[in-house]
Structure formats: C-alpha cells, structure tokens
C-alpha cells in the first residue's frame, strides 16, 4: 500500500516535470498562434465604416459581403478551381517521376530523389521569378516563338501562367506524398504479379496503381492545401489580374485596411480547410482498411 503511494507520487512528479518542460512551447503556441486565430474570429464580426474604421459591436456584415458580392464569390471559386487544376496537373507530371524513382535500380537513385524534393527549399519568390523569365512577354518561350515566326502566347500576368508556375512549385510536395506511398508497397506483390504472367501494363493497373493510392491522396492533399493558400506566385505571375482568396486577404488587410472583411475571408478559408481535412481523413481511413 505504502509502496504504491510512493510510486504514485513519483509518477505525479514525473508528469509535473513533463508539463513544466512543455510550458514554453504552450506559451509560444498559445500566445503566438492560438490568440491570433481567435482574434481573427472576433474581428470578423466587428462592424466597420468607410472600409477602415473598426467599431465595437457584433455583425455578420463582412460575411454577407463576402458571400453576397460576386467579386469575392468568384475569387473564392477561382481559388478552388486553381487548387483543383494545379493538384491534378502536379499529380500527372509527378507520378511518372515517382514511379521511375520507385522502380529504378540506378546508383543515382538517391541523388535523383534529392533533386526531386530539394526545390521546395528554394524560395517561392526565386522560382516564380524563374517562371517570369520563361513565360514573360519578352521571355524565353515567346522569344523562341518570335524567332520561328510563330504567333506569341500570353503566358504571363494571367491565369495560365499562374497555373504553370504553381504546378511546378507543388511538384516536390506531390513527390513527397507519392514517394511515401510507393515506399509502403511490398515489392514481392509486384514480383508475384509478374511471375503469374501479368503484362507490365496489367501489373501497373491492377497492382502498383491501386497500392499507390494512399500516397496519391497525401500528395494531392498537400498540393491542394498549399495552392489554396499560395500568395507569392499568384500575385507575381498573375500580375494583379488573378484574384484568389489569398491575394484578396492581403489586399483587404494591407491596402484597403478592411480588416473585418479580410478576417471573414480567413475564417471561411479555415473552415473550408477543416472540411477538406475531415474528408481526407475519411478517405484515407478507408484505404487503411483495404
């Protein structure tokens, strides 16, 4: 009995130590992260006059403006459309690379894996600038077209350019998800299919592709979420002509100073993200069962 009391006390002291060790982290996340998020919620319901003077009170005006004004509604829909397009394109261009990395026996394999993922450490501003040089009106693509006497393309300051740039920027994230998915495939299953006489095509469609779906899900989630909140690339490659939620939040917060509207857009974005994450969890749990 007495011994138990001592171990209880010891366990309690250990838990106390554990809490003490996480205290700085709790303070950082609490004050530096949770408070700002709660603050957004509060401000989003505050009335505002002339677009910039905050008043005390409670109103749904900013939400009504966001959902009621066709401009903001189209910015929201355009963001979702952009995220879906970029995710699908990024999947299509990254899947062959990931499949190649999964299958290759080259001694360069690990180098190629690093080359595939490392671009995500290069600043988005830098990579976007690279795309501006390629896609701009006097850029590489159009200069070559002009030399060949072909009609030039509008690839810059518009939606097309934004899609191309974002697709490339999402590739390493997509690769992270896909490579994680391929790594979980038991190689003996592919060998078994081959030894049972399946053609390479059939083996891919019936074995490898279905088994890689969890990785596809993870890659698509990362790409979708990051494209939805991407700000740098749409504002530089879109040249102020591609209006997405992220650029509008910035615009309302910094230029127009309509904080309640920016806050309302942020709250809606956050809720949308939670819905997407819940949806993703449902699907990925079904994959776990399979």
């Amino acid at each position, binding site marked *: 009995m007495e011994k138990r009391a001592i171990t209880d006390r010891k366990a309690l002291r250990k838990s106390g130590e554990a809490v003490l060790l996480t205290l700085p982290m709790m303070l*950082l996340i609490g004050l530096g992260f949770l408070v700002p998020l709660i603050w957004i919620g509060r401000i989003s319901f505050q009335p505002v006059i002339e677009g910039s003077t905050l008043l005390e009170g409670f109103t749904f005006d900013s939400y009504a403006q966001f959902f009621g004004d066709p401009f903001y509604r189209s910015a929201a829909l355009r963001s979702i459309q952009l995220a879906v397009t970029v995710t699908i394109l990024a999947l299509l261009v990254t899947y062959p690379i990931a499949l190649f990395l999964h299958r290759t026996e080259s001694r360069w394999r690990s180098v190629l894996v690093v080359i595939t993922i490392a671009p995500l450490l290069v600043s988005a501003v830098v990579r976007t600038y690279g795309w501006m040089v390629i896609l701009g009106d006097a850029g590489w693509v159009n200069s070559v077209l002009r030399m060949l006497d072909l009609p030039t393309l509008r690839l810059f300051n518009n939606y097309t350019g934004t899609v191309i740039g974002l697709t490339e920027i999402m590739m390493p994230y997509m690769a992270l998800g896909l490579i994680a998915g391929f790594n979980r495939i038991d190689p003996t299953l592919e060998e078994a299919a081959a030894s049972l006489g399946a053609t390479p095509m059939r083996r891919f469609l019936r074995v490898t592709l279905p088994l890689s779906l969890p990785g596809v899900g993870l890659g698509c989630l990362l790409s979708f979420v990051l494209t939805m909140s991407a*700000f740098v690339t749409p504002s530089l490659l879109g040249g102020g002509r591609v209006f997405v939620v992220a650029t509008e939040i910035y615009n309302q917060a910094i230029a127009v100073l309509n904080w309640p509207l920016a806050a309302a857009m942020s709250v809606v974005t956050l809720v949308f993200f939670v819905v997407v994450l819940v949806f993703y969890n449902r699907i990925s749990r079904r994959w776990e069962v399979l």
Partner: protein
Amino acid sequence: MRPSPLAVWLNRILITLLFIFLLAPVFPVIMMSFTNDPYIMFPPQTWGVEAYWNILQNRAFVAGAQNSLIIGVIVTVLALAVGIPAAYAIARLPLPGRDTLLALFTSPLIVPNIVFALGLLLVLVYFGLLGSYFGLIVAHTVLVVPFVIRILLTALNTMPAEVEAAASTLGATPVRVFMRITLPLLRPAILAAAGLSFLLSFDEVTVSLFIVGTSVNTLPVALFRYTQSHTDAQIAALSVVLILITIVIVLAVERTVGLMKGLGRH
C-alpha cells in the same frame, strides 16, 4: 515479359522532360544573373557581373539581409530552446494529454500561412508591435518549431531507450542522464533541426509581408517587393546567392543526418 526498346526510350525521354520541367526555373535565374541588360531579353545582349555589384549597393537588400540573418539566428536558438524540452517530454515522460498537445504543437503546419499572417497582423497592430523584430521572431518561431519537434521526436523514438535506462540504473541523476547520454545522441537531429529552422526563417515571405510594416524589412520581402516592379538581373543575382546559401546549409545538414528524414511534413 520485357517492355519493347521503343517503350523504354519513350519512357526515358518522358522522365527527362519532366525533370527539366521540375528544374526549369533555376536555369533562367542563373543565366539572367550574368547579364547587364536592363530588362528581360532573350538571348541576353550583354554579359557581366554588374548585377552582383548592384545588389551590394541596394540598401533594401543589404538591410534586409542583415535583418534576415539576425532574425534567423534568434529564431533558430529560440525554436530549439522551446522545441527540444517539449519533444523530450512527449517522447520520454508521462505527459498528460500527449496526443492532443502534439497535434496542437504541430498545428501551424496545417493552418494556412495567409490566415495565421492576418491574425498576427491584427494582434501586433493592437499592441503597437507592427514592423518590429519581436513580431517577426514570434511569427518565424511559430512556423519552424513544428519541424524541430518532428525531427527530434523521430530521433528520440528511434534511439534505443536502454542506454538511458542503463545510465540511470547505474545511479546517474535524470539531469545527468540527459546531459551526458541523451543530448550527445541527439546532436545530429539538433543540427538538422537548426539548419532547417534557419533556412525556413531566412526564406519565409508570406507571413513576413503582412507584419513587416514600413520600418523593418527581411531579404525575401525586399526581393518580393522589388520583383513586383522590376524584372532586371538584380533579382536573378540575389536569387543565385539565396540558392547557394540553401545548398550550403542543405549539404552541411546532409553530412550530419539525412535531410529528407526531417522534411516529412505529415
């Protein structure tokens, strides 16, 4: 059953093209940095290293680089000081509500940066701290600390706990065990976390753009603003410098531990 040689070659060409697309933005950046042209021309008309001298004369870039360097170092130290004890408590001690706390500590990875940026802007404005080192340091620390915790948790969970147990049964105090056994074994993970923290802070632009105000600037913010109004070779030269800094840090980290281990976001 082997695929035909034609299929093999088509496959190789496709993979090569996709890799070229993945690395596409790097080539023009390097080439443009060695032109003296006032704007984008293809092929470039004049060659030289003028752009590299010009970025050293550009006040916004030099001041931004200084700020980013100072902030990056402070953020790295802070994130380690806050993240290491938290990771240790989660991995080794009976922490109440462990899973909830871990989810909370890594939640900045899930919440869109743009939303967090606005929230921090509103709070900083309220307390009159917009455009301060304080705001930038808090913002960057919040953003990098989940990576510190992830990397250290992986290291702690793959490290044999028996070594620590052995030391403690031989009579070492918990503090002594941590200082003499755990910490040295964690050194590679701590170096990786430090390298990644510095890099992420040094490159962070979205949240910084919201909270820099008009007085303080960071290098990526200065670069972003310059890119909005110019397309000259200075951007390319600065980009090359940033890429080189990234490569140096990545190689340094790669030599101590695999970097890719630390990058698993989920």
